[in-house]
Protein backbone atom coordinates (compact mmCIF):
# COMPACT_ATOMS: atom_id res chain seq x y z
CA UNK A 1 0.00 0.00 0.00
CA UNK A 2 2.80 2.42 1.03
CA UNK A 3 4.95 1.36 -1.93
CA UNK A 4 2.01 1.96 -4.24
CA UNK A 5 1.42 5.33 -2.77
CA UNK A 6 5.13 6.25 -3.21
CA UNK A 7 5.08 5.09 -6.80
CA UNK A 8 2.08 7.31 -7.43
CA UNK A 9 3.86 10.34 -5.92
CA UNK A 10 6.91 9.75 -8.10
CA UNK A 11 4.69 9.45 -11.18
CA UNK A 12 2.89 12.65 -10.26
CA UNK A 13 6.14 14.51 -9.74
CA UNK A 14 7.48 13.24 -13.06
CA UNK A 15 4.35 14.25 -14.88
CA UNK A 16 4.58 17.70 -13.31
CA UNK A 17 8.19 18.03 -14.41
CA UNK A 18 7.36 17.06 -17.99
CA UNK A 19 4.50 19.55 -18.02
CA UNK A 20 6.76 22.30 -16.72
CA UNK A 21 9.44 21.61 -19.31
CA UNK A 22 6.90 21.44 -22.11
CA UNK A 23 5.30 24.68 -21.05
CA UNK A 24 8.61 26.49 -21.06
CA UNK A 25 10.17 25.01 -24.16
CA UNK A 26 7.33 24.06 -26.52
CA UNK A 27 6.42 27.53 -27.81
CA UNK A 28 10.00 28.14 -28.88
CA UNK A 29 10.23 24.71 -30.53
CA UNK A 30 7.09 25.08 -32.70
CA UNK A 31 8.18 28.55 -33.83
CA UNK A 32 4.82 30.15 -33.09
CA UNK A 33 4.44 33.59 -34.63
CA UNK A 34 2.67 36.53 -33.11
CA UNK A 35 -0.82 36.74 -34.56
CA UNK A 36 -0.25 39.82 -36.72
CA UNK A 37 3.07 38.88 -38.25
CA UNK A 38 3.23 38.40 -42.01
CA UNK A 39 6.31 36.20 -42.52
CA UNK A 40 8.77 37.22 -45.20
CA UNK A 41 10.89 34.43 -46.71
CA UNK A 42 14.32 35.05 -48.22
CA UNK A 43 14.34 33.52 -51.69
CA UNK A 44 17.58 34.72 -53.29
CA UNK A 45 17.22 32.24 -56.16
CA UNK A 46 13.67 33.24 -57.07
CA UNK A 47 14.60 36.45 -58.89
CA UNK A 48 12.03 37.79 -61.30
CA UNK A 49 9.83 34.72 -61.02
CA UNK A 50 8.14 36.24 -57.97
CA UNK A 51 6.36 38.75 -60.14
CA UNK A 52 4.47 35.81 -61.62
CA UNK A 53 1.47 35.39 -59.31
CA UNK A 54 1.39 31.60 -59.73
CA UNK A 55 5.14 30.91 -59.86
CA UNK A 56 6.36 27.72 -58.10
CA UNK A 57 8.63 29.88 -55.95
CA UNK A 58 5.59 31.08 -54.03
CA UNK A 59 5.19 27.51 -52.78
CA UNK A 60 8.35 27.97 -50.72
CA UNK A 61 6.76 30.73 -48.64
CA UNK A 62 4.30 30.23 -45.77
CA UNK A 63 0.82 31.59 -46.37
CA UNK A 64 -0.70 33.92 -43.84
CA UNK A 65 -4.49 33.81 -43.75
CA UNK A 66 -5.83 37.23 -42.83
CA UNK A 67 -9.45 37.92 -41.96
CA UNK A 68 -11.12 40.89 -43.63
CA UNK A 69 -14.08 42.97 -42.51
CA UNK A 70 -15.94 45.99 -43.91
CA UNK A 71 -13.86 49.13 -43.52
CA UNK A 72 -15.15 51.92 -41.28
CA UNK A 73 -16.24 54.45 -43.90
CA UNK A 74 -18.94 56.98 -44.70
CA UNK A 75 -19.30 55.52 -48.20
CA UNK A 76 -22.82 54.36 -49.02
CA UNK A 77 -23.26 50.62 -48.34
CA UNK A 78 -19.91 50.60 -46.53
CA UNK A 79 -20.96 47.51 -44.58
CA UNK A 80 -21.86 45.54 -47.67
CA UNK A 81 -18.61 43.80 -48.52
CA UNK A 82 -18.22 40.26 -49.73
CA UNK A 83 -14.58 39.13 -49.47
CA UNK A 84 -13.92 37.59 -46.06
CA UNK A 85 -10.24 36.65 -46.13
CA UNK A 86 -7.05 37.12 -48.06
CA UNK A 87 -4.07 34.77 -48.10
CA UNK A 88 -0.79 36.68 -48.09
CA UNK A 89 2.70 35.43 -48.93
CA UNK A 90 5.80 37.61 -48.92
CA UNK A 91 9.36 37.06 -50.06
CA UNK A 92 12.58 38.97 -50.56
CA UNK A 93 14.88 38.55 -53.48
CA UNK A 94 17.66 40.75 -54.90
CA UNK A 95 16.79 43.70 -52.70
CA UNK A 96 13.14 43.54 -53.70
CA UNK A 97 10.08 42.81 -51.63
CA UNK A 98 7.41 40.74 -53.33
CA UNK A 99 3.94 40.30 -51.84
CA UNK A 100 1.29 38.02 -53.23
CA UNK A 101 -2.39 38.26 -52.36
CA UNK A 102 -4.77 35.41 -53.10
CA UNK A 103 -8.48 35.54 -52.46
CA UNK A 104 -11.64 33.80 -53.57
CA UNK A 105 -13.97 35.76 -55.85
CA UNK A 106 -16.35 33.82 -58.05
CA UNK A 107 -16.67 36.66 -60.59
CA UNK A 108 -13.81 38.13 -62.57
CA UNK A 109 -14.49 41.85 -63.03
CA UNK A 110 -11.79 43.48 -65.07
CA UNK A 111 -11.97 45.11 -68.44
CA UNK A 112 -15.06 47.14 -69.32
CA UNK A 113 -13.71 49.09 -72.23
CA UNK A 114 -14.31 46.71 -75.09
CA UNK A 115 -15.13 48.19 -78.44
CA UNK A 116 -15.09 51.98 -78.16
CA UNK A 117 -18.48 52.38 -79.75
CA UNK A 118 -19.99 49.39 -78.02
CA UNK A 119 -22.28 49.74 -75.05
CA UNK A 120 -20.17 51.01 -72.19
CA UNK A 121 -20.30 49.20 -68.89
CA UNK A 122 -21.21 52.38 -67.10
CA UNK A 123 -22.38 50.67 -63.95
CA UNK A 124 -19.73 47.95 -63.70
CA UNK A 125 -16.88 48.06 -61.22
CA UNK A 126 -13.54 46.29 -61.23
CA UNK A 127 -12.13 43.86 -58.70
CA UNK A 128 -9.25 45.46 -56.84
CA UNK A 129 -6.78 44.98 -54.01
CA UNK A 130 -4.41 47.20 -52.10
CA UNK A 131 -1.56 47.07 -49.64
CA UNK A 132 -1.32 49.95 -47.19
CA UNK A 133 1.96 50.89 -45.54
CA UNK A 134 3.06 53.83 -43.40
CA UNK A 135 5.11 56.20 -45.59
CA UNK A 136 7.43 56.48 -42.62
CA UNK A 137 8.20 52.85 -41.74
CA UNK A 138 8.41 53.59 -38.01
CA UNK A 139 5.10 55.47 -37.84
CA UNK A 140 1.74 54.06 -36.71
CA UNK A 141 -0.90 55.66 -38.94
CA UNK A 142 -4.64 55.27 -38.45
CA UNK A 143 -5.95 52.20 -40.26
CA UNK A 144 -8.39 54.24 -42.41
CA UNK A 145 -5.97 55.77 -44.94
CA UNK A 146 -3.72 57.38 -42.32
CA UNK A 147 -3.87 61.09 -41.58
CA UNK A 148 -2.18 64.31 -42.67
CA UNK A 149 0.42 63.82 -39.92
CA UNK A 150 0.94 60.12 -40.59
CA UNK A 151 0.38 59.51 -44.29
CA UNK A 152 0.24 56.10 -45.89
CA UNK A 153 1.70 54.66 -49.07
CA UNK A 154 -0.78 52.47 -50.95
CA UNK A 155 0.06 49.87 -53.57
CA UNK A 156 -3.09 49.44 -55.60
CA UNK A 157 -4.15 47.00 -58.26
CA UNK A 158 -7.48 46.83 -60.05
CA UNK A 159 -8.76 44.84 -63.01
CA UNK A 160 -9.47 47.83 -65.27
CA UNK A 161 -6.51 50.07 -64.35
CA UNK A 162 -3.80 47.54 -63.39
CA UNK A 163 -1.23 48.95 -60.94
CA UNK A 164 -1.13 52.35 -59.25
CA UNK A 165 0.86 53.80 -56.42
CA UNK A 166 -0.92 56.22 -54.13
CA UNK A 167 -0.21 58.41 -51.16
CA UNK A 168 -2.99 59.31 -48.72
CA UNK A 169 -3.36 61.45 -45.63
CA UNK A 170 -6.85 60.40 -44.58
CA UNK A 171 -10.01 59.15 -46.28
CA UNK A 172 -10.69 60.73 -49.68
CA UNK A 173 -7.18 62.08 -50.13
CA UNK A 174 -5.45 59.26 -51.99
CA UNK A 175 -3.38 60.75 -54.80
CA UNK A 176 -1.60 58.95 -57.58
CA UNK A 177 2.17 59.26 -57.61
CA UNK A 178 4.91 58.09 -59.92
CA UNK A 179 4.53 54.34 -59.75
CA UNK A 180 7.48 52.32 -58.49
CA UNK A 181 5.57 49.14 -57.72
CA UNK A 182 4.98 46.57 -60.41
CA UNK A 183 1.83 44.50 -60.23
CA UNK A 184 0.71 41.36 -61.97
CA UNK A 185 -2.52 39.41 -61.70
CA UNK A 186 -3.89 36.00 -62.61
CA UNK A 187 -7.43 34.76 -62.23
CA UNK A 188 -7.70 31.00 -61.86
CA UNK A 189 -10.34 28.63 -60.49
CA UNK A 190 -12.38 31.35 -58.85
CA UNK A 191 -9.38 32.98 -57.21
CA UNK A 192 -7.37 36.13 -57.83
CA UNK A 193 -3.60 35.91 -57.48
CA UNK A 194 -2.02 39.36 -57.46
CA UNK A 195 1.63 40.22 -56.92
CA UNK A 196 3.16 43.53 -55.91
CA UNK A 197 6.94 43.91 -56.27
CA UNK A 198 9.07 46.89 -55.29
CA UNK A 199 12.67 47.61 -54.31
CA UNK A 200 13.10 47.45 -50.55
CA UNK A 201 15.18 50.59 -50.60
CA UNK A 202 13.65 53.76 -52.01
CA UNK A 203 14.99 57.28 -52.41
CA UNK A 204 11.68 59.01 -53.13
CA UNK A 205 10.06 60.98 -50.30
CA UNK A 206 6.81 59.72 -48.79
CA UNK A 207 7.39 56.09 -49.82
CA UNK A 208 7.85 53.22 -47.43
CA UNK A 209 11.45 52.11 -47.11
CA UNK A 210 12.06 48.59 -45.82
CA UNK A 211 15.79 48.84 -45.08
CA UNK A 212 15.69 50.46 -41.65
CA UNK A 213 15.94 47.16 -39.76
CA UNK A 214 12.59 47.60 -38.05
CA UNK A 215 9.18 45.98 -38.28
CA UNK A 216 6.89 47.66 -40.81
CA UNK A 217 3.13 47.81 -40.43
CA UNK A 218 1.02 46.64 -43.33
CA UNK A 219 -2.72 46.32 -43.99
CA UNK A 220 -4.67 44.78 -46.85
CA UNK A 221 -7.87 45.65 -48.70
CA UNK A 222 -9.92 43.84 -51.32
CA UNK A 223 -12.84 45.10 -53.43
CA UNK A 224 -15.35 42.89 -55.22
CA UNK A 225 -16.40 44.72 -58.38
CA UNK A 226 -19.55 42.71 -58.99
CA UNK A 227 -20.82 43.86 -55.59
CA UNK A 228 -20.20 47.49 -56.68
CA UNK A 229 -17.45 47.77 -54.07
CA UNK A 230 -15.26 50.82 -54.54
CA UNK A 231 -13.73 53.62 -52.47
CA UNK A 232 -14.49 53.11 -48.76
CA UNK A 233 -16.80 50.17 -49.47
CA UNK A 234 -14.07 47.56 -49.12
CA UNK A 235 -13.03 44.56 -47.05
CA UNK A 236 -9.95 45.41 -44.99
CA UNK A 237 -7.62 43.75 -42.51
CA UNK A 238 -6.35 45.16 -39.26
CA UNK A 239 -2.75 46.32 -39.11
CA UNK A 240 -0.29 43.43 -39.57
CA UNK A 241 3.48 43.75 -39.75
CA UNK A 242 6.45 42.54 -41.75
CA UNK A 243 9.09 41.33 -39.23
CA UNK A 244 12.00 43.33 -40.62
CA UNK A 245 13.17 44.34 -37.13
CA UNK A 246 15.98 42.62 -35.18
CA UNK A 247 15.26 39.40 -33.18
CA UNK A 248 14.69 37.80 -30.76
CA UNK A 249 11.31 36.42 -31.63
CA UNK A 250 9.79 37.50 -28.32
CA UNK A 251 10.75 39.66 -25.37
CA UNK A 252 13.90 38.51 -23.51
CA UNK A 253 11.96 37.60 -20.35
CA UNK A 254 9.62 35.34 -22.34
CA UNK A 255 11.29 32.12 -21.00
CA UNK A 256 11.04 33.32 -17.38
CA UNK A 257 7.34 34.08 -17.83
CA UNK A 258 6.68 30.67 -19.32
CA UNK A 259 8.64 29.02 -16.42
CA UNK A 260 6.64 30.91 -13.80
CA UNK A 261 3.40 29.93 -15.54
CA UNK A 262 4.50 26.28 -15.77
CA UNK A 263 5.54 26.26 -12.10
CA UNK A 264 2.21 27.69 -11.05
CA UNK A 265 0.48 24.97 -13.02
CA UNK A 266 2.57 22.27 -11.34
CA UNK A 267 1.88 23.67 -7.87
CA UNK A 268 -1.84 23.64 -8.57
CA UNK A 269 -1.77 20.06 -9.85
CA UNK A 270 0.35 18.82 -6.93
CA UNK A 271 -1.82 20.61 -4.41
CA UNK A 272 -4.91 19.10 -5.99
CA UNK A 273 -3.45 15.59 -6.01
CA UNK A 274 -2.38 15.89 -2.37
CA UNK A 275 -5.76 17.24 -1.42
CA UNK A 276 -7.55 14.29 -3.10
CA UNK A 277 -5.25 11.73 -1.47
CA UNK A 278 -5.89 13.14 1.99
CA UNK A 279 -9.64 12.82 1.70
Amino acid at each position, binding site marked *: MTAGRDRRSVATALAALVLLTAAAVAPALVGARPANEVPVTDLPEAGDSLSNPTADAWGQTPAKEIALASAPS*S*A*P*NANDTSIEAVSVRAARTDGRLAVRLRWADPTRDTN*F*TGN*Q*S*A*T*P*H*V*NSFGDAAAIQLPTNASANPGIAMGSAQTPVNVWYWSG*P*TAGQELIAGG*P*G*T*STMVNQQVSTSATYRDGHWYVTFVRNESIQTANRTDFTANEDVQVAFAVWNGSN*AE*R*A*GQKAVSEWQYFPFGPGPQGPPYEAILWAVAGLALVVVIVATVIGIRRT
Partner: protein
Amino acid sequence: MSLQGEDGATVELADGIEHQVAMVMDLNKCIGCQTCTVACKKLWTEGGGREYMYWNNVETKPGRGYPRDWEEKGGGFASAEQAGQEDVHGEREVGELPSEEDWGRPWEFNHGEIFYDGSDESLRPQGEPPEWGPNWDEDQGAGEYPNSYYFYLPRICNHCTHPSCAEACPRKALYKREEDGIVLVDQERCRGYRYCVEGCPYNKVHFNVLKKKSEKCIFCYPRKEAEGPDDEVRPPACASECPPQLRLVGFLDDEDGPIYKLVEEYGVALRLHPEFHTQPNVYYVPPFAPPQHTEDGETVDVDRIPRPYLEELFGEDVHDALDTIERHRDRVRRGEDSELMDLLTTQDLARQYRLEAFE
Protein backbone atom coordinates in the same frame (compact mmCIF):
# COMPACT_ATOMS: atom_id res chain seq x y z
CA MET B 1 -25.57 83.52 -48.52
CA SER B 2 -28.67 85.49 -49.49
CA LEU B 3 -28.83 88.78 -51.33
CA GLN B 4 -31.74 91.14 -50.85
CA GLY B 5 -32.96 92.73 -54.03
CA GLU B 6 -34.55 96.19 -54.37
CA ASP B 7 -37.99 94.66 -54.67
CA GLY B 8 -37.53 92.60 -51.52
CA ALA B 9 -36.89 89.31 -53.27
CA THR B 10 -33.97 87.31 -51.93
CA VAL B 11 -31.53 85.29 -53.96
CA GLU B 12 -29.91 82.32 -52.30
CA LEU B 13 -26.36 81.70 -53.46
CA ALA B 14 -24.19 78.82 -52.32
CA ASP B 15 -21.65 79.65 -49.61
CA GLY B 16 -18.42 81.03 -51.01
CA ILE B 17 -19.88 81.68 -54.46
CA GLU B 18 -19.61 85.22 -55.81
CA HIS B 19 -22.21 84.95 -58.55
CA GLN B 20 -24.38 82.18 -59.91
CA VAL B 21 -24.87 81.53 -63.61
CA ALA B 22 -28.36 80.44 -64.48
CA MET B 23 -30.60 79.64 -67.42
CA VAL B 24 -34.31 79.92 -68.06
CA MET B 25 -35.89 77.66 -70.67
CA ASP B 26 -39.31 78.61 -72.00
CA LEU B 27 -41.01 75.26 -72.63
CA ASN B 28 -43.68 76.96 -74.72
CA LYS B 29 -41.13 77.47 -77.46
CA CYS B 30 -39.45 74.08 -77.59
CA ILE B 31 -40.13 72.22 -80.83
CA GLY B 32 -38.09 69.13 -79.91
CA CYS B 33 -35.69 69.59 -82.84
CA GLN B 34 -32.64 68.48 -80.81
CA THR B 35 -30.44 71.21 -82.28
CA CYS B 36 -29.26 71.97 -78.74
CA THR B 37 -28.47 68.29 -78.23
CA VAL B 38 -26.44 68.14 -81.41
CA ALA B 39 -24.68 71.46 -80.73
CA CYS B 40 -23.56 70.15 -77.36
CA LYS B 41 -22.62 66.74 -78.71
CA LYS B 42 -20.51 68.18 -81.54
CA LEU B 43 -18.73 70.42 -79.11
CA TRP B 44 -18.11 68.18 -76.11
CA THR B 45 -19.14 64.53 -76.36
CA GLU B 46 -18.40 63.20 -79.80
CA GLY B 47 -16.21 60.24 -78.95
CA GLY B 48 -13.64 58.73 -76.65
CA GLY B 49 -16.03 57.01 -74.28
CA ARG B 50 -18.68 59.74 -74.62
CA GLU B 51 -20.71 58.10 -77.37
CA TYR B 52 -23.71 57.45 -75.15
CA MET B 53 -23.55 60.83 -73.38
CA TYR B 54 -25.92 63.73 -73.91
CA TRP B 55 -24.96 66.52 -71.53
CA ASN B 56 -27.92 68.28 -73.14
CA ASN B 57 -30.88 66.11 -74.02
CA VAL B 58 -34.48 66.87 -74.95
CA GLU B 59 -37.06 64.41 -73.74
CA THR B 60 -40.79 64.13 -74.23
CA LYS B 61 -42.98 64.65 -71.20
CA PRO B 62 -44.87 62.73 -69.99
CA GLY B 63 -42.22 60.11 -70.75
CA ARG B 64 -39.53 58.02 -69.18
CA GLY B 65 -36.70 60.34 -70.16
CA TYR B 66 -32.94 59.99 -70.43
CA PRO B 67 -31.72 57.90 -68.76
CA ARG B 68 -34.89 55.80 -68.58
CA ASP B 69 -36.97 56.56 -65.46
CA TRP B 70 -34.37 58.97 -64.09
CA GLU B 71 -36.98 60.66 -61.92
CA GLU B 72 -37.38 57.46 -59.90
CA LYS B 73 -33.72 56.67 -59.35
CA GLY B 74 -33.21 58.72 -56.19
CA GLY B 75 -30.38 61.03 -55.20
CA GLY B 76 -30.57 64.58 -53.92
CA PHE B 77 -31.45 65.50 -50.35
CA ALA B 78 -34.24 64.41 -48.04
CA SER B 79 -35.01 67.99 -47.01
CA ALA B 80 -34.00 71.59 -47.51
CA GLU B 81 -32.42 71.49 -44.05
CA GLN B 82 -30.24 68.56 -45.04
CA ALA B 83 -29.24 70.26 -48.28
CA GLY B 84 -28.13 73.33 -46.31
CA GLN B 85 -25.91 71.43 -43.91
CA GLU B 86 -22.21 71.82 -44.37
CA ASP B 87 -21.40 68.13 -44.62
CA VAL B 88 -24.15 65.57 -44.97
CA HIS B 89 -22.01 62.92 -46.51
CA GLY B 90 -23.41 59.55 -45.60
CA GLU B 91 -26.87 60.90 -44.82
CA ARG B 92 -27.89 61.86 -48.33
CA GLU B 93 -30.44 60.00 -50.37
CA VAL B 94 -28.32 57.43 -52.13
CA GLY B 95 -29.54 57.00 -55.66
CA GLU B 96 -29.42 54.18 -58.12
CA LEU B 97 -26.77 53.94 -60.82
CA PRO B 98 -28.49 53.82 -64.23
CA SER B 99 -27.56 50.81 -66.32
CA GLU B 100 -26.24 50.97 -69.86
CA GLU B 101 -29.66 49.81 -71.04
CA ASP B 102 -31.25 52.77 -69.24
CA TRP B 103 -28.95 55.25 -71.01
CA GLY B 104 -29.30 53.44 -74.32
CA ARG B 105 -26.33 52.24 -76.30
CA PRO B 106 -24.94 54.34 -79.13
CA TRP B 107 -26.26 52.79 -82.32
CA GLU B 108 -23.98 51.96 -85.22
CA PHE B 109 -25.65 52.45 -88.59
CA ASN B 110 -24.96 50.87 -91.98
CA HIS B 111 -24.14 54.23 -93.59
CA GLY B 112 -21.04 52.84 -95.31
CA GLU B 113 -22.88 49.96 -96.96
CA ILE B 114 -25.72 52.13 -98.19
CA PHE B 115 -23.84 55.24 -99.32
CA TYR B 116 -20.61 53.73 -100.62
CA ASP B 117 -21.11 50.02 -101.26
CA GLY B 118 -24.39 50.25 -103.17
CA SER B 119 -26.33 48.13 -100.69
CA ASP B 120 -30.11 48.37 -101.00
CA GLU B 121 -30.68 47.53 -97.36
CA SER B 122 -32.64 50.01 -95.33
CA LEU B 123 -30.80 52.28 -92.94
CA ARG B 124 -30.99 50.74 -89.48
CA PRO B 125 -29.04 50.28 -86.28
CA GLN B 126 -26.61 47.40 -86.55
CA GLY B 127 -26.19 44.57 -84.08
CA GLU B 128 -28.82 43.49 -81.62
CA PRO B 129 -32.14 45.22 -82.33
CA PRO B 130 -32.29 48.05 -79.78
CA GLU B 131 -34.96 47.90 -77.13
CA TRP B 132 -34.44 51.32 -75.63
CA GLY B 133 -32.59 54.55 -76.32
CA PRO B 134 -32.80 58.28 -75.76
CA ASN B 135 -36.16 59.53 -77.07
CA TRP B 136 -37.46 56.00 -77.49
CA ASP B 137 -40.87 57.34 -76.38
CA GLU B 138 -40.56 60.63 -78.29
CA ASP B 139 -43.91 62.34 -78.98
CA GLN B 140 -45.80 59.53 -77.29
CA GLY B 141 -47.04 61.62 -74.37
CA ALA B 142 -50.25 60.77 -72.57
CA GLY B 143 -54.00 61.30 -72.70
CA GLU B 144 -56.67 60.04 -75.10
CA TYR B 145 -57.50 61.44 -78.53
CA PRO B 146 -58.61 64.16 -79.07
CA ASN B 147 -57.10 65.28 -75.79
CA SER B 148 -53.70 63.67 -75.95
CA TYR B 149 -50.82 65.89 -74.92
CA TYR B 150 -47.09 66.11 -74.61
CA PHE B 151 -44.36 68.72 -74.48
CA TYR B 152 -40.59 68.74 -74.72
CA LEU B 153 -38.25 69.12 -71.80
CA PRO B 154 -34.66 70.09 -72.63
CA ARG B 155 -32.28 69.21 -69.81
CA ILE B 156 -28.70 70.10 -68.94
CA CYS B 157 -26.83 70.00 -65.63
CA ASN B 158 -28.63 72.35 -63.27
CA HIS B 159 -25.42 73.69 -61.66
CA CYS B 160 -27.30 73.45 -58.39
CA THR B 161 -26.83 75.74 -55.42
CA HIS B 162 -26.61 72.57 -53.29
CA PRO B 163 -25.16 70.03 -55.72
CA SER B 164 -25.73 66.56 -54.27
CA CYS B 165 -23.27 65.16 -56.85
CA ALA B 166 -20.51 67.15 -55.14
CA GLU B 167 -21.75 66.14 -51.71
CA ALA B 168 -21.74 62.50 -52.81
CA CYS B 169 -18.09 62.49 -53.84
CA PRO B 170 -15.88 61.25 -50.98
CA ARG B 171 -12.89 62.87 -52.71
CA LYS B 172 -14.46 66.28 -53.30
CA ALA B 173 -13.62 65.89 -56.97
CA LEU B 174 -16.77 67.85 -57.89
CA TYR B 175 -16.91 71.48 -56.92
CA LYS B 176 -18.67 74.75 -57.61
CA ARG B 177 -16.55 77.44 -59.20
CA GLU B 178 -16.22 80.41 -56.90
CA GLU B 179 -16.67 83.03 -59.61
CA ASP B 180 -19.88 81.71 -61.19
CA GLY B 181 -21.14 78.59 -59.41
CA ILE B 182 -20.57 76.29 -62.39
CA VAL B 183 -20.27 72.69 -61.14
CA LEU B 184 -17.25 70.86 -62.52
CA VAL B 185 -15.53 67.50 -62.11
CA ASP B 186 -11.83 67.83 -61.30
CA GLN B 187 -10.44 65.22 -63.67
CA GLU B 188 -7.30 64.88 -61.55
CA ARG B 189 -9.22 64.06 -58.37
CA CYS B 190 -11.86 61.81 -59.94
CA ARG B 191 -11.27 58.08 -59.45
CA GLY B 192 -14.40 56.89 -61.20
CA TYR B 193 -16.37 55.81 -58.12
CA ARG B 194 -19.60 57.18 -59.63
CA TYR B 195 -21.17 58.28 -56.36
CA CYS B 196 -21.83 61.56 -58.20
CA VAL B 197 -23.72 59.71 -60.94
CA GLU B 198 -26.02 58.08 -58.43
CA GLY B 199 -26.09 61.15 -56.17
CA CYS B 200 -27.46 63.51 -58.85
CA PRO B 201 -31.25 63.13 -58.86
CA TYR B 202 -31.34 64.59 -62.39
CA ASN B 203 -28.85 62.00 -63.66
CA LYS B 204 -26.72 64.66 -65.30
CA VAL B 205 -23.33 63.24 -64.43
CA HIS B 206 -21.99 60.62 -66.82
CA PHE B 207 -19.23 58.06 -66.57
CA ASN B 208 -16.57 57.82 -69.27
CA VAL B 209 -15.57 54.17 -69.41
CA LEU B 210 -12.41 54.84 -71.42
CA LYS B 211 -11.12 57.60 -69.17
CA LYS B 212 -12.64 55.97 -66.08
CA LYS B 213 -13.75 59.38 -64.86
CA SER B 214 -17.03 61.20 -64.47
CA GLU B 215 -17.91 63.93 -66.95
CA LYS B 216 -20.71 66.45 -67.16
CA CYS B 217 -22.05 69.67 -68.65
CA ILE B 218 -19.62 72.53 -68.06
CA PHE B 219 -22.10 75.31 -68.96
CA CYS B 220 -19.74 75.94 -71.90
CA TYR B 221 -17.47 77.93 -69.57
CA PRO B 222 -14.81 78.47 -72.25
CA ARG B 223 -17.45 80.25 -74.35
CA LYS B 224 -18.47 82.31 -71.33
CA GLU B 225 -14.81 83.23 -70.93
CA ALA B 226 -14.43 84.29 -74.59
CA GLU B 227 -11.90 81.58 -75.31
CA GLY B 228 -13.11 81.10 -78.87
CA PRO B 229 -11.23 82.34 -81.95
CA ASP B 230 -13.13 85.65 -81.99
CA ASP B 231 -12.58 86.44 -78.27
CA GLU B 232 -16.31 87.07 -77.85
CA VAL B 233 -18.26 86.12 -74.74
CA ARG B 234 -20.91 83.64 -75.87
CA PRO B 235 -23.75 81.83 -74.13
CA PRO B 236 -23.65 78.03 -73.94
CA ALA B 237 -23.92 76.40 -77.36
CA CYS B 238 -27.26 74.77 -76.50
CA ALA B 239 -28.70 78.26 -75.98
CA SER B 240 -27.15 80.08 -78.93
CA GLU B 241 -27.89 77.31 -81.45
CA CYS B 242 -31.55 76.92 -80.44
CA PRO B 243 -33.75 77.73 -83.50
CA PRO B 244 -36.71 79.10 -81.49
CA GLN B 245 -34.29 80.75 -79.01
CA LEU B 246 -36.08 79.44 -75.97
CA ARG B 247 -33.23 79.94 -73.52
CA LEU B 248 -32.23 83.01 -71.54
CA VAL B 249 -28.83 83.02 -69.88
CA GLY B 250 -27.33 85.20 -67.20
CA PHE B 251 -26.76 85.40 -63.47
CA LEU B 252 -29.37 84.65 -60.86
CA ASP B 253 -28.03 87.53 -58.78
CA ASP B 254 -27.99 90.10 -61.59
CA GLU B 255 -31.05 92.19 -60.73
CA ASP B 256 -31.17 93.76 -64.15
CA GLY B 257 -30.83 90.45 -65.93
CA PRO B 258 -33.51 88.23 -67.43
CA ILE B 259 -33.06 85.39 -64.95
CA TYR B 260 -33.61 87.48 -61.85
CA LYS B 261 -36.69 89.07 -63.36
CA LEU B 262 -38.30 85.82 -64.48
CA VAL B 263 -37.37 83.80 -61.41
CA GLU B 264 -37.44 86.26 -58.55
CA GLU B 265 -39.61 89.16 -59.67
CA TYR B 266 -42.35 87.51 -61.70
CA GLY B 267 -41.99 83.97 -60.38
CA VAL B 268 -42.80 82.47 -63.77
CA ALA B 269 -39.61 80.38 -64.17
CA LEU B 270 -39.51 77.35 -61.89
CA ARG B 271 -37.17 74.65 -60.79
CA LEU B 272 -37.69 71.14 -62.07
CA HIS B 273 -38.47 68.75 -59.21
CA PRO B 274 -37.81 71.19 -56.37
CA GLU B 275 -38.46 68.29 -53.97
CA PHE B 276 -34.95 66.98 -54.69
CA HIS B 277 -33.74 70.01 -52.68
CA THR B 278 -30.58 70.59 -54.69
CA GLN B 279 -31.80 74.03 -55.79
CA PRO B 280 -31.19 73.91 -59.54
CA ASN B 281 -30.10 77.01 -61.41
CA VAL B 282 -31.83 76.00 -64.60
CA TYR B 283 -35.43 77.23 -64.53
CA TYR B 284 -38.43 76.46 -66.72
CA VAL B 285 -41.35 78.53 -67.89
CA PRO B 286 -44.10 75.88 -67.65
CA PRO B 287 -45.92 74.87 -70.84
CA PHE B 288 -49.37 75.89 -71.96
CA ALA B 289 -51.42 73.80 -74.34
CA PRO B 290 -54.74 74.41 -76.11
CA PRO B 291 -57.72 73.52 -73.92
CA GLN B 292 -59.39 70.12 -74.26
CA HIS B 293 -61.87 69.32 -77.04
CA THR B 294 -65.05 67.30 -76.97
CA GLU B 295 -65.36 64.43 -79.43
CA ASP B 296 -67.27 66.83 -81.67
CA GLY B 297 -64.36 69.21 -81.71
CA GLU B 298 -65.91 71.70 -79.30
CA THR B 299 -63.40 73.53 -77.12
CA VAL B 300 -64.04 73.11 -73.41
CA ASP B 301 -62.52 74.99 -70.51
CA VAL B 302 -60.36 72.13 -69.23
CA ASP B 303 -56.55 72.07 -69.13
CA ARG B 304 -55.13 69.72 -71.72
CA ILE B 305 -51.96 69.23 -69.70
CA PRO B 306 -53.30 68.24 -66.28
CA ARG B 307 -52.23 70.69 -63.61
CA PRO B 308 -51.39 67.87 -61.16
CA TYR B 309 -48.84 66.60 -63.66
CA LEU B 310 -47.21 70.02 -63.99
CA GLU B 311 -47.26 70.30 -60.22
CA GLU B 312 -45.47 66.96 -60.03
CA LEU B 313 -42.70 68.38 -62.22
CA PHE B 314 -42.44 71.96 -61.02
CA GLY B 315 -44.01 72.04 -57.57
CA GLU B 316 -46.98 74.03 -56.26
CA ASP B 317 -45.68 77.33 -57.61
CA VAL B 318 -46.64 76.21 -61.10
CA HIS B 319 -50.19 77.48 -60.53
CA ASP B 320 -49.07 81.01 -59.73
CA ALA B 321 -46.60 80.96 -62.59
CA LEU B 322 -49.23 79.94 -65.15
CA ASP B 323 -51.73 82.43 -63.73
CA THR B 324 -49.19 85.25 -63.90
CA ILE B 325 -48.33 84.48 -67.52
CA GLU B 326 -52.03 84.27 -68.37
CA ARG B 327 -52.62 87.65 -66.78
CA HIS B 328 -49.80 89.25 -68.72
CA ARG B 329 -50.96 87.64 -71.97
CA ASP B 330 -54.37 89.20 -71.41
CA ARG B 331 -52.74 92.52 -70.77
CA VAL B 332 -50.90 92.36 -74.09
CA ARG B 333 -54.11 91.26 -75.85
CA ARG B 334 -55.74 94.40 -74.48
CA GLY B 335 -52.91 96.46 -75.96
CA GLU B 336 -51.22 97.17 -72.64
CA ASP B 337 -47.51 96.89 -71.89
CA SER B 338 -45.97 93.89 -70.19
CA GLU B 339 -42.29 93.75 -69.31
CA LEU B 340 -42.75 90.02 -68.68
CA MET B 341 -44.10 89.35 -72.16
CA ASP B 342 -41.40 91.58 -73.65
CA LEU B 343 -38.79 89.52 -71.88
CA LEU B 344 -40.28 86.20 -72.94
CA THR B 345 -40.52 87.27 -76.57
CA THR B 346 -37.43 89.44 -76.90
CA GLN B 347 -35.23 89.15 -79.92
CA ASP B 348 -32.62 91.43 -78.41
CA LEU B 349 -29.66 89.20 -77.73
CA ALA B 350 -28.26 91.63 -75.18
CA ARG B 351 -31.41 91.19 -73.07
CA GLN B 352 -31.59 87.45 -73.62
CA TYR B 353 -27.98 86.69 -72.79
CA ARG B 354 -26.31 88.69 -70.04
CA LEU B 355 -23.01 87.09 -69.12
CA GLU B 356 -20.92 90.21 -68.71
CA ALA B 357 -22.96 91.85 -65.98
CA PHE B 358 -20.23 91.54 -63.35
CA GLU B 359 -17.16 92.31 -65.44
